[in-house]
């Protein structure tokens, strides 16, 4: 039954909706409601009950991205994503961050991580939330977002790099205070 599937994954869906809506609870609730009604309407098309979780998240993320696109009145700009050559170049130019994050306590990181994800561009925050927070695989996220796997990888790389940069600020402040 649809309600049972929804109830089983509701907390995770709500958490993802909250990240996609940049921490706005009313927007997250609205998104979740919209996505749930769409899912309910299409429930008959779900052939494999084992794929229910991935299927619900697909509907949630696509509903969100459709809203973002309609609000910005444009298709997502393809140039924002890297082609294979540009991605290889970005990967090759990666260098080990100067500031280690392990100086921060897990509590300090937890306090900042939600804000850091909320500050990412929507397409990056969707990718990192689905892969790193919810633990979906690159291939599953590619299906959810209707993207090539390579694009998912490049978005994940950009997202993690940006998150790393955001978290490096408090880590550097902490090290600076400690050295005084």
């Amino acid at each position, binding site marked *: 039954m*649809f*309600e049972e599937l*929804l*109830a089983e994954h*509701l*907390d995770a*869906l*709500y*958490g993802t909706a*909250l*990240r996609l809506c940049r921490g706005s*609870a009313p927007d997250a*609730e609205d998104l*979740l*409601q919209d996505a*749930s*009604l769409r899912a*309910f*309407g299409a429930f008959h098309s779900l052939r494999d009950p084992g794929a229910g979780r991935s299927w619900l998240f697909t509907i949630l993320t696509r509903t969100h991205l459709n809203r973002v696109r309609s609000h910005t009145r444009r298709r997502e700009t393809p140039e924002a994503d890297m082609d*294979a050559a540009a*991605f*290889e*170049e*970005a*990967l*090759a*130019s*990666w260098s*080990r*961050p100067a500031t280690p*994050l392990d100086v921060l306590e*897990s509590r300090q*990181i*937890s306090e900042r*991580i*939600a804000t850091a*994800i909320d500050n990412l561009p929507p397409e990056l925050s969707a990718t*990192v*939330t689905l*892969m*790193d*927070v919810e*633990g979906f*695989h*690159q*291939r599953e996220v590619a299906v959810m977002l209707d993207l090539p*796997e*390579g694009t998912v*990888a490049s978005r*994940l*790389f950009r997202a*993690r790099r940006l*998150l*790393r940069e955001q*978290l490096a600020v408090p880590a550097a402040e902490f090290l600076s205070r400690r050295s005084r």
Partner: protein
Amino acid sequence: MSSHCGRARRLLWPDDNPREATAEVVGAQAHVAECATCQDFLREMDATGSLVRGAAPRVTAPPCARERLFRSVARARIGPSVERRGPRWGILAMAACLLVAVGVWRFTVWNPKPDPIAAFADDHLRAASGPGVRTTEASTAAGWLRERLPFAIQVPRFPSGQVEGARLCLMAGMHGGVVEYRLGDHELSYFVVPAEGKAPGSAVDIRSAARAGFRVVAWREGDLMHALVADLPEATLRELARICIEQSMGVSPAGTGSTLPARPRLFTM
């Protein structure tokens, strides 16, 4: 760092999918085995992923949001079947739904025999709502409820009654608020829950029933259903109900004496 680094990283990262061992992939793996920078890259990326996964807050959908969501799905479940049947069947279906809704309302409010499956979800929601707040301050109880419910509850003041606390409740799958009182040796609960369907006319009907040694009086005001439950005589509860109604109308702030322009129509179920 060689020009092979970028290609090897693109081919092998993120490494959560099984890969076909093409010559390109095998070459990339051989490169990484020799390249300390690429190994460093993979380690750092894994660490960042683990950090995000471990630190990201795990949230629980608020009970009110759950309730609204499942209510809208329930509406959607009924909706399309009515639309498909054309106008004449639509009217009949609507009338049938109305009869069922009235029946369900009477069944659930006055003859509570919960569906055992729904009871699991209800109990989970009830636990998620927490035990409530213990307070003797009416304003604290009202504030606590206001933060958790999509509607305001005016906490009535009863002569010789003392507020003891507030909590959330589930009535027929809907979240509402309860204010708990002590009246001498008696415990009194004042329930306010959303009412289903369109509100009746302006007259306030106070209904009464007895269950398991407790007396219940209930009435509807606008979109809200109110009820008082206690092991008190029916006449006393009706009088307390009238005080609630007066105070919600702002007629008698102290809750002493009846100043309603017309007495509510009373009947017993």
